[in-house]
C-alpha cells in the first residue's frame, strides 16, 4: 500500500454522531445490528435516517438495522463460512464450510473484494486489481500474516496447513512451531522501558448520576440463552424458555413504593427515551438499581429497544460507551386493557408470522413479541392497551387465523366488561388464542398450545378467567435445563420433597447435558427461594 490515512477515524459513537449531524454521509454496516445494540438508540435512529446511503451486509434479513438500509447484501454465516477466528486466549482456529449458503448469499470477504474492484475503477485506481487479487481466504490470511512480522502478534510461524492440524496461539514468529502460551513470564514487558506500568487513577463517578427525577440506576447485561441482538438466537423458540420476554429486573421494595407488582407493565424512562416492559420482581438487584437484558430490540418490543435508555457517553481513551450506567425512573403505565395472543407456527419456524406481526409493535406503546415452545414453535404477542381497539383486534385476528367464523373458531364477547376472546382449535389442539380485556389464563393456554395436548375435555374452561389450569395441567414455566427440558417447577418440587441433586439429575437428566444450568440448579438446591418470580 502506498500510504495509509493519517487522521484517526471515528469510533462507533462518533461515527453515528457524524451521520446524525451530516458530516458522514454514507455508512456500510456489516455483520452487526447497531439499531439494536448501540447505546442511545434515538441518536442511532436519527443517524440512519439522515444518512444519504446505508448499506447493510448481513446474513439475516429482518434485523432492526435492515429497516434503515437502502441496499441489502446477503452474506454467508456460520456453517457456510471459511477462514479463521481468534479467541480470548490468543488461540487462532479454523472456521470451515460445511454446507452451501442459501440463495445468492456471498462470503463477506468476497463481497468486499467485488465492491473494491468496482469502486477502485470508479476512483481511477489502476492498482485495485492487484491490491484485491484474492481468490480464497487463505491468500487473504497469508497477506495479513505478513503484516504481523516483527510485531507483537507475529504469526509468521503459522500457516493454514498448521492450523488445519490444530488451533494455535499467537505470537508464533517464524522459526517457532508453537505459540507462546503465557506472556511476560520473564518479567519483561513491551513498554519503552521494558517495565510494566502502574496506572495511578483516582475514582470518578459515572457519567450519569441518579437524582430526584431519575432515582434508579440502570444496569444492562446478558441472559444465559440469548446472544447480542438475537438475530440468530431469537429464531430458536427453546432459547426463550429461560427468560421468555423483555423484563425489568427490579427490587420488590422499588415496586411496592410505586404500587406496582411482579408482572405489571411499567415504563422506564429518562431524557433519552422510554422503554415499556413488564416487571420481574427480583432481589438479585438491590433497591435503587434495576437491570434490563441487553438483547431486546424493536423486533421484540414496542419502541426502539432497551438501548433507548443507555448513554453514549464514552471513555476518553477507549471510546467505549458506558452501557452499564444510566439513570432512569420507573412508573406505572396508564391503560388497563390486557392483550394476549398466540399462534402456533405451522411452518415450523414462525418466522413468516413474526414478520407479519412485527408492524403491530409500531402501533403499540406496550407490547412484546416473542417465541415459545420447544418442538412446536408458538409466537406470542403481549400488550397493554389504553382501551379496547376494534380495528387493531380485527387486524390481529386476521393475522392469527381468528378472523373467520368457521368450525375452528371459538368466541367469547362480554361487551359490558369490554372482554373479547377468540380461540382456534384444529384436530383437538389449540392453535391460536386472542384474549382482550382479561388474560389470566394466558400461561396455561400457552402451555396447551406448546404441547399440543388434546383440549377437547377443556373446551368449557378456555375462556374462563382462571389463573391456574384445570386440574392436571401445568402452566408454561421457566425451563432451567434446556438440554433436557426440565422446568423450574419440577426442580423446586423435587428439592422441596427432599430429593438430592444427584437423584434429580439421574431421574431427569438436568445438568448432565451442556451444564449451563448447573449454577442455577445448585442455587435452587441450596436454599429456599424467597423471590417471587413466576409470571
Amino acid at each position, binding site marked *: *500500500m502506498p500510504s495509509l*490515512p493519517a487522521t*484517526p*477515524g*471515528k469510533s462507533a459513537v462518533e461515527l453515528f454522531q457524524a451521520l446524525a449531524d451530516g458530516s458522514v454521509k*454514507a455508512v*456500510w454496516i*456489516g455483520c452487526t445490528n447497531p439499531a439494536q445494540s448501540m*447505546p442511545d438508540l434515538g441518536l442511532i435512529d436519527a443517524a440512519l435516517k439522515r444518512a*444519504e*446511503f446505508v448499506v447493510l451486509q448481513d446474513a439475516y*434479513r429482518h434485523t432492526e438495522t435492515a429497516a434503515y438500509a437502502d441496499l*441489502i*447484501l446477503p452474506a454467508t454465516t456460520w456453517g457456510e463460512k*471459511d477462514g479463521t477466528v*481468534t*479467541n*480470548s486466549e490468543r488461540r487462532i482456529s479454523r472456521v470451515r464450510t460445511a*454446507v*452451501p449458503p442459501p*440463495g445468492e448469499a456471498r462470503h463477506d*470477504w468476497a463481497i468486499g473484494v*467485488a465492491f*473494491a474492484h*468496482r*469502486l477502485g475503477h470508479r476512483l481511477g485506481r489502476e492498482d*485495485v486489481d492487484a*491490491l484485491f487479487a484474492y481468490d480464497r481466504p487463505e491468500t487473504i490470511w497469508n497477506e495479513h500474516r505478513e503484516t504481523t512480522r516483527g*510485531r*507483537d*502478534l507475529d504469526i509468521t510461524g503459522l500457516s493454514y496447513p498448521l492450523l488445519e492440524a490444530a*488451533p494455535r496461539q499467537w505470537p508464533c514468529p517464524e522459526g517457532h512451531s508453537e505459540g507462546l502460551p503465557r*506472556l*511476560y513470564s520473564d518479567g519483561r514487558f*513491551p513498554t519503552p522501558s521494558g*517495565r510494566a*506500568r*502502574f*496506572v*495511578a*487513577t*483516582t*475514582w470518578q463517578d*459515572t457519567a450519569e448520576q441518579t437524582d430526584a427525577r431519575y432515582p434508579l440506576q440502570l444496569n444492562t*447485561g446478558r441472559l444465559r440463552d440469548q446472544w447480542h441482538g438475537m438475530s*440468530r438466537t431469537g429464531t*430458536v423458540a427453546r*432459547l426463550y424458555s429461560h427468560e421468555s420476554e423483555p423484563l425489568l429486573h427490579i427490587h420488590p421494595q422499588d415496586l411496592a413504593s410505586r404500587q406496582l407488582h411482579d408482572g405489571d407493565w411499567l415504563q422506564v424512562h429518562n431524557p433519552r427515551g422510554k422503554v415499556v416492559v413488564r416487571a420481574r420482581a427480583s432481589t*438479585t438487584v438491590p433497591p435503587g438499581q434495576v437491570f434490563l437484558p441487553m438483547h431486546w430490540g424493536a423486533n421484540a418490543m414496542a419502541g426502539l429497544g432497551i438501548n433507548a435508555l443507555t448513554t453514549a457517553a464514552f*471513555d476518553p*481513551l*477507549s471510546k467505549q460507551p*458506558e*452501557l452499564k*450506567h444510566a439513570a432512569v425512573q420507573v412508573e406505572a403505565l396508564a391503560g388497563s386493557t390486557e392483550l394476549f395472543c398466540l399462534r402456533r407456527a405451522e411452518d415450523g*419456524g414462525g418466522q413468516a408470522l413474526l414478520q407479519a406481526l412485527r408492524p403491530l409493535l409500531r402501533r403499540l406503546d406496550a407490547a412484546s413479541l416473542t417465541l415459545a415452545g420447544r418442538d412446536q414453535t408458538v409466537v406470542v404477542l403481549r400488550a397493554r392497551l389504553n382501551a379496547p381497539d376494534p380495528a387493531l383486534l380485527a387486524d390481529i385476528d386476521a393475522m392469527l387465523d381468528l378472523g373467520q367464523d368457521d368450525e375452528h373458531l371459538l368466541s367469547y364477547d362480554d361487551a359490558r366488561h369490554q372482554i373479547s376472546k377468540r380461540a382456534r382449535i384444529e384436530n383437538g389442539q389449540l392453535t391460536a388464542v386472542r384474549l382482550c380485556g382479561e388474560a389470566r389464563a394466558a400461561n396455561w393456554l400457552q402451555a396447551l398450545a406448546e404441547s399440543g395436548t388434546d383440549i377437547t375435555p377443556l373446551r368449557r374452561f378456555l375462556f374462563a378467567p382462571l389463573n391456574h389450569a384445570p386440574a392436571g395441567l401445568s402452566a408454561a414455566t421457566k425451563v432451567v435445563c434446556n438440554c433436557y427440558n426440565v422446568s423450574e417447577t419440577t426442580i423446586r418440587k423435587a428439592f422441596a420433597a427432599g430429593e438430592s441433586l444427584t437423584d434429580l439429575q439421574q431421574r431427569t*437428566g438436568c445438568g*448432565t447435558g451442556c*451444564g449451563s444450568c448447573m449454577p442455577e440448579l445448585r442455587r435452587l438446591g*441450596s436454599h429456599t427461594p424467597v423471590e417471587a418470580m413466576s409470571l
Partner: protein
Amino acid sequence: MARILHCGLRDRRQPLVSVSANGGQCVQRIARAGLSPGRAHGNLDMAESPLLRSTQLSSAQTTRSTCPYCGVGCGVLIEHDGKHITGVRGDPEHPANFGKLCIKGTTLHHTADPALLSARAQYPELRPTRDAAPQRVSWDVALDTAAARFADIISRHGPDAVAFYFAGQLLTEDYYVFNKLAKGLIGTNNFDTNSRLCMSSAVVGYKLSFGMDSVPCNYEDIDHADCLFITGANPAFAHPILFRRVEAARERRPGQKIIVVDPRRTDTSELADLHLAILPGTDVALYNGMLHLALKKGWVREDYIAAHTEGFDAMREIVRDYPPAHVAERCGIREQDLEQAAEWFATSPATLSMYCQGLNQSTQGAHKPAVADRPAQRHGRARGRWSVQPAARPPRGCQP
C-alpha cells in the same frame, strides 16, 4: 447410544470419535489408521466396519469448525449431509472446550433449520427511494449502485464522508479485506466495529499496563489459581464453558477462594466465597482500597516492583487517600469484606483476575482493567489478569 462419525478432515491422522448421547461430554476415541489423504468432508469409502457403512448410507459428514458466539471460541463439530446441518457437538480436541458446549453452542444446528430460511438475507435488495419497499436486484446492480454512490460521495465530500461499521464476529479474513478497502483504497480511517462496545477498554488497559494489547494468560490458568478474582463479569451466563472450568477447579482445590465483584447477585456470585456487591461504578475505589490495605500490611513484593515495574510511587501517593473505612462506605460494602478480599488476593500463591463488561463499558473503562491489574502486578503476578472478550476479537492494527 453411541454414534460413530467420520470426521471429514483432510488430515489422515484424525481419529474417529464415538460420542455418547449426553451432550458430548463422554468421549471415547477409536483410533483409525489408514484414512487416505485428501479425503475432505467425509467422502466415505471404507467398507470395513458395518457401523461406518450405515453412516455412509446416510451421507453423514462432520466438519470441524468454531462456534460463532462468544470469545471463549469453542471448537465445534458440525454434523451435516453436505446440504443441511443436522447437528452440532463440541470438538473434544479443541483446547478451549474439550468437547463441551454451552446451551447456545449446543443449539447451533437449530439456527440452521431449513424452516428458518425466511429469516435469512438471500438476494441483494435495493430501495429505489427511502420510503419505497426494497426490491430484489442482481449482484451486478447492487455492487454497481454501491460503487457509484460511494464514489460520488467521496468525490464530492472526500474520503472521510463515508464510514464502515463492522463486527468482532467477522472472520479475520473478512475484517482484513474491509479494512484494506476503507484505509487503503478509499483513504479513510472511519472504520469501527461492535468490538468498540465490548473490549476497547480492555485493549487500552492492556496497552497502558503492559505496552501491548494482549491477554497474558491461558484458560488453563483457571485450573491453577488459588484465588479467582471475578470482577464486572458474569461468566456463568456470558462464558459458560469457562465457568465449567471454574467449577471444576473449585471441586479439585477445596482451598481455592473465589471473590466476585458485581452490584448484582448472579449465578456467578452464587459460587463465590465472597461477593462484593459494590455500588455501581465504584470499582476503581475498590481496587485502590485493596492496594491501600496491601501496602499497609506489607503484602507487596517490593523486589518485583523495583525490578519490573514503574510508576509505583505515584500510585502509592494516590491510594493513600483510599483508607478502608472510606472505601467501604464509598463502595457500599463492609470493611471486613474489603479486608478479606485484599488478603485473599494478595496472599494467595496464584491469583487470577477475570473481568468483562462491568469494567469495560464505563467512562473510566480504559483505566479500570489497568487498575484492577495493579494488585497482580504488585505481587509479581502481572500475567494473572485476563479479560474474557465476549466476542472473538478481530486482528490487531485495526484501531484508528
